[in-house]
C-alpha cells in the first residue's frame, strides 16, 4: 500500500448510521489526503451532513470506523468514541453559530481559552486570524452586529484559530445571497490554502463544489455515487444520477451494443423513434448489452445548419433564449427535447430546422 490511495489523513471506513428505520448513511468509505479540500456533495437527505457530524463526533454511528491522522475517533465495534471536544477539529456551521452574548474577539478566543493558551498569545493569535479573514476592525463588535458574510468569516476564524487537525464545513455558504456566496467561495478557498488545514466541506451546491474542491464525493441516498476531481466528475460521470446532479445533461435511455478499445463503444438509443446508434465513450462498469444512459452536456452538442457528414440528428428549434455569452436552446428530436448551448453567432429562431452533431469524445454511456 505504498501508493497511499487508501491510507489518507482522514479515513472513513464502512460508516453506517440509522435514523429509526432509515439508513441515513449506508456503508460509506473514503479517505482524504493531508492538506486536501474534499467536498461531500448531494441533495438534502443524502447523508452528507450525517457523515460530517459523525466525523465531528456530534453523532454516534452504528457501524464503521473514523480515523484522523492515525487516531481512531469512532469505532463502535471496539467501543471507541472520542467526545467531540477531544477531537481537535474546527467546524463551521450552517447557521455560523456565532455566540450572540460575546464579541467577535471573544468568540474567536474561546477555543484558545479552553486549551489554556496564555492570554498574550491568545491576543496575538486572535488578531492574526481576524486579519486573515478580514475582520480586524470588527473585533470588539457583538456577534449580533455583524452581517451574514461577516458572521461567516468570524465562524471561520474561530474554527481555524486553534490550528486544528481537520476543518469541517457544514453548508457554510447556503444562508448567504448569491453574490456574497460567489465571493466567499473564493475567499474560503484562499484562506484554506493559506492555513493548509485538511478540510471536508458539505454542500448541495454543485457550483460551490466545482470551484472549491480538490476532490468531490457525490452522495445520494446514503451512498457514495462517485468520487474524483471536479473535472473528472463533470466530464466522466459514472451514472445518470451524477451526470444530472453535476451541471446539466441530456439523458437518453439506451442499450450498449459494442465496447471496444480505450473505453470506446456504441450505444443504441430508441427514444427518437427509429433506433439510432451513437459512437461514444463507455463509463467504467458498463458492458455490452447493458441497459445504459447516454449522457451529453448541452455545450457538447453542436447545432448546424446543414447535415454535413449525414450523421447528424435532424430537429426543430422549440425555444432559443439569448443569454449574452451563449444561447440556450431547446430542440425537438422525435419525442425527445435536447438542451443545447450554442455560440451566439449561430442564429437560431423558433421553428428553424437544425442538425445536431454529437462529438463521440464527449458523449458518454453511463449506468442508469
Amino acid at each position, binding site marked *: *500500500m505504498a501508493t497511499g490511495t*487508501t*491510507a489518507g489523513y482522514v*479515513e472513513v471506513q464502512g460508516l453506517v448510521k440509522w435514523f429509526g428505520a432509515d439508513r441515513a448513511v449506508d456503508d460509506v468509505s473514503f479517505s482524504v489526503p493531508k492538506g486536501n479540500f474534499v467536498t461531500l456533495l448531494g441533495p438534502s437527505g443524502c447523508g452528507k451532513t450525517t457523515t460530517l457530524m459523525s466525523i*465531528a*463526533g*456530534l453523532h454516534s454511528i452504528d457501524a464503521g*470506523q473514523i*480515523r484522523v491522522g*492515525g*487516531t*481512531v475517533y469512532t*469505532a463502535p465495534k*471496539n*467501543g*471507541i*468514541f472520542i*467526545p*467531540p*471536544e*477531544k*477531537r*481537535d*477539529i*474546527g*467546524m463551521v*456551521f*450552517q*447557521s455560523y*453559530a456565532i*455566540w*450572540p*452574548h460575546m464579541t467577535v474577539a471573544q468568540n474567536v478566543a*474561546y*477555543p484558545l481559552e*479552553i*486549551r489554556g493558551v496564555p492570554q498574550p498569545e491568545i491576543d496575538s493569535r486572535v488578531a492574526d486570524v481576524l486579519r486573515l479573514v478580514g475582520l480586524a476592525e470588527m473585533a470588539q463588535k457583538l456577534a449580533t452586529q455583524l452581517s451574514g458574510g461577516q458572521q461567516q468569516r468570524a*465562524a471561520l476564524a*474561530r*474554527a481555524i484559530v*486553534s490550528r486544528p487537525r481537520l476543518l*469541517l464545513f457544514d453548508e457554510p455558504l447556503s444562508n448567504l445571497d448569491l453574490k456574497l456566496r460567489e465571493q466567499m467561495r473564493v475567499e474560503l478557498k484562499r484562506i484554506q490554502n493559506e492555513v493548509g488545514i485538511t478540510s471536508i466541506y458539505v454542500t448541495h451546491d454543485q457550483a460551490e463544489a466545482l470551484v472549491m474542491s480538490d476532490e468531490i464525493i457525490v452522495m445520494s441516498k446514503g451512498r457514495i455515487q462517485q468520487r474524483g476531481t471536479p473535472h473528472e466528475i463533470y466530464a466522466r460521470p459514472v451514472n445518470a444520477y451524477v451526470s444530472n446532479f453535476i451541471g446539466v445533461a441530456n439523458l437518453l435511455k439506451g442499450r450498449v451494443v459494442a465496447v471496444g478499445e480505450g473505453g470506446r463503444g456504441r450505444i443504441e438509443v430508441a427514444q427518437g423513434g427509429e433506433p439510432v446508434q451513437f459512437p461514444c465513450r463507455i463509463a467504467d462498469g458498463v458492458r455490452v448489452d447493458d441497459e445504459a444512459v447516454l449522457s451529453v452536456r448541452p455545450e457538447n452538442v453542436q447545432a448546424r445548419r446543414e447535415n454535413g457528414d449525414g450523421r447528424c440528428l435532424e430537429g426543430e428549434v422549440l425555444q432559443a433564449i439569448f443569454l449574452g455569452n451563449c444561447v440556450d436552446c431547446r430542440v425537438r428530436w422525435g419525442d425527445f427535447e435536447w438542451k443545447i448551448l450554442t455560440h451566439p453567432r449561430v442564429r437560431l429562431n423558433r421553428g428553424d430546422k437544425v442538425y445536431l452533431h454529437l462529438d463521440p469524445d464527449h458523449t458518454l454511456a453511463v449506468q442508469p
Partner: protein
Amino acid sequence: MSTQTLTENALQAPAASRWRSLITQETVATAVVSLIVAAAVVLPLLVLVISSFRVLDPGGFDTTWGLDNYRTLYTDRVIPKAFVNTLIVCAGSTVIATFFGVALAWINARTNCPGRQRMEPFNLVPFFLSPFVGAIAWHNLAGGKVGLINSWGRDFLGMQGNLINVDNLYGVIWVTGLFFAPLVYLFVVGSLRRMDPSLEDSARTTGAGLVRTAMTVTLPLVAPGILSGAIIVFVTTAGEFGVPFKLSAPYGWQTLTTQIFSKAVGDDANIYLGSAMSMALGVITVLLIWIQQSYIAPRSFTTVTGKGFRPNVIDLGRWKWAAFAFNSGFILVAVVLPILCLIVVSLHPVWQSRIILHDLTLHNYVRTLFFWAPDHIAAATNGIYNSFILAFAGATIAMALSLVVSYMIHRTKGFGARLLDFLCVVPVGFPGIVIAMGVLVTYIRTPIYATLWILLLGYITRFFPYGQRNVSSVMLAISEELDQSSRMAGASWFTTLRRITIPLLKPGIFAGWVLLFIIFLRELSISIILYSSGTETLSVGVYYLTNYENDTLTAALSVTQTAILLACVYIFRRIAGREALTV
C-alpha cells in the same frame, strides 16, 4: 506502514473503555436528573393511587384493602354535593373568566381604546395576586352581613337585608372568574397581537366586511387560544381551595377541595378517603389538560411566528369610551376595590362593617409583621419568613432542574427525552391539592414530614414545569449549533453549559425563576395540606387568621402579602422589561 497495522494498534482499546465512554458528564448529569424528576413526579401519584384503595377501619388505627373509599364518594352525605358544586363553580368561573379575558384582550390588542397602554399591566395584576385574598376582600366588600357595600346600602339607602351577597357559590364563581380572567387574556392577547395583519386584510379584499372577517378569519385563528385558556381556567378553578373555603364552605356549599382539606387535616381526618377524593378530582383535570395539550394547543397557528407584526387596529369611534369604561370597570372590581377594602378593614381594631375614622390603628400590622412584638401571632410572622425561604430555594432548585430537563428534552433525542417531556406535563394536569395529597401520603412517615422540606418538594413537583416551559421556549429559539460549535472548539459538556448554554438561556431562566418565586409566595392549596405548626407560609398565615382570629388581622396580613407580590412584580418588570412575567 500499512493501514492494517495502524488500525489494529489503535483498536487495542480494552473492553472497559466501552463502558467508560458511556460515563460522560452529560450522561451522568442527565441520568441523575431524570431519576429525580421521575421520583418526584411518579412516586407521589403512585402512592396516592395505592392509598386510595386502603380503607381505614372504624377504630381509625388499621387499614385493609378495598374499594370502600370510592363507594363513599357517592354514598356520602356531602361529597356528591361537593362534586356537583365543584362542577358548577368551574363552569361559571370559566364563563366569566373567558368573557373578561377575551374582551379585554381584544380591547387591548386591537382597538383604539383610550389609555390601553396604561391599563394593560393592571389587567394582569389579579394573575399575580392570591385568589384567596381576593375572596377575603370581596367578603369584606359584599359579604352577607359584614359587607361594606351592604352596610352602606342599609345606612344610606335605607335598604333591608343585602344589596349583594358573595357568601355563596355565585360569589365563588365571581371571584375566581375575575382572578382567572388574566389566564384567558394571556392566551388570547398573544395570538391577537402576533397575527399577521395580511390574513385579515386579504379577507377584506375578497369583500368580507369587518364583522364577517372577524367571524371567519380572526375568531377561528384565536379560537384555540380561547379554548386553551378556558380549559386552564376550568382546571385551575377545580383545584382552587381558598375561594370556596372562604366564601361558600362556611355557608354550607362544600367543594371537592374543601372536602379533601377537611379529610386530610380536619377533625375527621382520613387521608385514605382524601386520596380517593383527590383521585376523583385528578381524573377530571388530567383528562381536560390532556385534551388541551394534545388537541387544542397544537392548533394555535399564530403563536409561533416570530415576526413583529403591527396588528390591525380598529377605530371604535364613540364606542371607544364604552371600551374604556369596561376595562377600567374590570380593574376597579378585580384590583382597586378589593385592595382598598382590605386596607380599610386592616386599619380597624374590630370590623363593624363601617369606617370609624377615630378608631384607625396600625396595630394589626404590628401583630402580624413584627415577630418581636409581645402580642405577635406566630402563624403570621412565621409565614412571611417561611414563604421567602421557600420561594427563593424553590425557584432556584426548580430552575436548575428545569435547565437540565429542557436540555435533555431538546438536545438529547431518544426515548429518555420523550419520557421526560411527558413527565414534565404530568404535574400540570393535577391541581396542587392533589399533588400535595400524594406528597403527604408518600412522606408522612418520613423525617421530612412537618418540615419545610416537604413543602419545598410539593412546590417544586407541582410547579417546576412552568419554569421548564420558560427555559424550553428560549432553548427552542436558539440553534443547537451554538452548543455544538463550543464542543468542537474543545469545550466539555459542562463547560459548554456554563459558558454558552446558560448565558444564552439567561432571559428564560430569569423569567421562569421570577414566575415561580411569585407563585410560591402566594401558594395556598399545597401548603394547606403539608404545613404544620412552625412551617406556616404566608397564605397559611392568612388562613390561620381568618379561621382563628378576626377579619382585621386577616386583612392586615392579606394587604402585606399583596404589597409584597406587587412589589416583586414591579421590581422584576423593571429589571427584565415588560416581556417578563407573561407566562
